[in-house]
């Protein structure tokens, strides 16, 4: 279709359920991701939000950025709260206590709230099969509290609790593969997304919300503050994360993998890493090691996608 790139953005709603004026840092990729996700979710939604950056920046009493019903309780229990919301709505509709209506229940959390402290509650909620969507906004560390490492922090990244030192390269473990953990629960829909690919992100969030049963969307959210990069690089770094194969965009529908963007040749990981202060201490050897690992992981994913 001609002028597709011009036409499509006009289809996106101008409504902003996540209102401007919140207190996110300059250049925050996560605020952009939340904004896009909320546009995709629309008005008939209830959001349960974990403690973290997006909760803190959006809800200082007595103000709020949320034009949709929103609840925050604690750090690690968001999936459980969402399961209570879903069950409450469902039974009250069944008993005729509230009108029947399609209300999407969405849980939002950061990478720490998902892959570390909230993993048990998330696993329980996915296993029980609640009809809800869980969105993990992954900025690869506990940024809100001062850039501490999480299990989602990439290998070699320096954080305040995995500092690079004379005898340490920074983070010594490889990033936990949360989408694979979600997919291992045999839930109907798992996807990865990045706000640098806004239409893909919105499509996936909408698809997840419309999937009956649990759905999981893992969104890479560039954090200039924690990644030690210029504040105008959030979109560029998100693209590079995908183009280098470090964060491939894919879906797992009923167990079938689909790679959404494939590149004949991946860019070298250094194109992505050299722009970020958190990796600047890494030696050529380590960069080479990371390059090999990324290539191997990408090849494995591609094979799975070909198998279907």
């Amino acid at each position, binding site marked *: 279709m001609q002028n597709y790139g011009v036409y499509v953005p006009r289809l996106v709603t101008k409504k902003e359920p996540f209102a401007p004026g919140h207190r996110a840092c300059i250049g925050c990729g996560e605020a952009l991701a939340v904004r896009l996700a909320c546009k995709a979710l629309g*008005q008939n939604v209830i959001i349960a939000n974990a403690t973290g950056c997006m909760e803190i920046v959006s809800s200082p009493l007595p103000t709020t950025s949320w034009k949709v*019903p929103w609840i*925050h309780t604690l750090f690690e229990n968001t*999936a459980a709260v969402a399961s209570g919301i879903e069950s409450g709505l469902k039974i009250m509709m069944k008993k005729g*206590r509230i009108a029947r209506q399609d209300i999407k229940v969405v849980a939002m959390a950061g990478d720490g709230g998902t892959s570390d402290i909230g993993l048990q509650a998330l696993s329980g909620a996915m296993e029980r099969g609640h009809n809800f969507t869980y969105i993990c906004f992954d900025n690869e560390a506990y940024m809100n509290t001062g850039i501490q490492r999480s299990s989602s922090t990439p290998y070699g990244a320096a954080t305040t609790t995995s500092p690079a030192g004379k005898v340490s390269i920074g983070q010594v473990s490889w990033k936990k593969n949360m989408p694979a953990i979600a997919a291992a629960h045999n839930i109907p829909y798992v996807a990865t997304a990045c706000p640098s690919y806004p239409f893909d992100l919105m499509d996936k969030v909408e698809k997840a919300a419309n999937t009956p049963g649990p759905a999981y969307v893992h969104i890479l959210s560039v954090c200039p503050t924690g990644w030690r990069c210029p504040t105008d690089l959030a979109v560029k770094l998100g693209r590079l994360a995908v183009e280098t194969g470090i964060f491939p965009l894919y879906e797992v529908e009923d167990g079938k993998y689909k790679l959404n963007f494939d590149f004949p040749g991946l860019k070298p990981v250094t194109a992505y890493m050299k722009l970020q202060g958190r990796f600047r201490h890494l030696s050529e050897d380590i960069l080479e090691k990371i390059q090999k690992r990324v290539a191997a992981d990408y090849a494995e994913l591609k094979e799975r996608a070909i198998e279907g």
Partner: protein
Amino acid sequence: MADRVGIEVSVALSDAVKQANVDVIAAYPITPQTHIVEHLAELVANGELDAAYIPVESEHSAMSACLGSAATGARTFTATAGQGLELMHEVLYVASSMRLPVVMAVANRALSSPLSVWGDHSDVMAVRDTGWIQIFTENGQEVVDHVFCAFRIAEDNKVLLPVMIHLDGFNLSHVIEPITFPAQSKVDKFLPPNKYPLPLHPDKPVTMGDFAPPIIYTEAKWAQEVNLRASKEIIIKCWQEFANIFGRQYSPVESYHSEKAKVLLLTMGSFSETAMTAIDKMRGEGKDVGLVRLRLWRPFPFDELRRAVENAETLIVLDRALSFGGPGGPVCSEVKAALYGQAKKPKVVSFVAGIGGRDISPSDFEEIINKGIAISEKGSPNEFEIYGVRE
């Protein structure tokens, strides 16, 4: 169902939850549980109770799911005990601070370590300050009655606070007792449908659970304190209306031959009934003793307690929990605090007994009372004693 039936208290409690027409139950079966959640699961599975049953993966998630459910306006129930209550700990504060009317039955038990699944009040005392309304029960009938009262109090739009119904683990939760179930029509009359004022719903978006900078946190907590204290009047009113419909009267502080007695024993929970046997015997022997039972633990009934003990010379407080390195039993230290500024007050003696499932027989109560009198006569007692401990 108006007849009296012999039934296990946990099962009776579940039947009462059914009569309360609860919408959502979220519960975890271990650490340790009672038959409450098993019987509720059975009622739901048989279609006798139209409710969503969420078999969560921990007590932390049980209470978290209850938060979500209560925030939608659904009538929400859970049950736990001992370690499970402690695992819920941080979530309990959120339920009360966000004014979510969850009702929870707690079969009070000891805490590890060493592992003990048996009864005492260690679990309750550790959640004393979580902002919940907390009511103690003494027998199966009181447990059933308080299921209805708890929902009515919690969901009252002037209260909107979660309520814990405390029943002693094993001594109450696992025994078979004669219980009268009220007619459903009377329950429906007493307990109107839950009308949560600002539920989570797209028709009217609300933001719940903001963060509070220092400029507003103090005021938020003050409002919570005012709200919890004010709930006492509504609790008393609820009990009065309950008495009008069902004929059984409850009060924040209840007495047994205590009006003119020189020596009073203060207890909480099911051991109160055992203590009554001891009191009867001692009074038969001409001893001037009486019993005071603290039913409402939070909000603490300061005025009612002061009035109940003002004419006594000695007040012996029995705790079923220890405040390690502190002033003795937690209940006793609160009683002392309530009486400190009073011109006319009894000497207070502190005993800790019945922890980790150790029984207290009527003869033990006699000995506790006699010992308490002796300590009181010796002078101003400051220490506490663990009754019956082999040192």
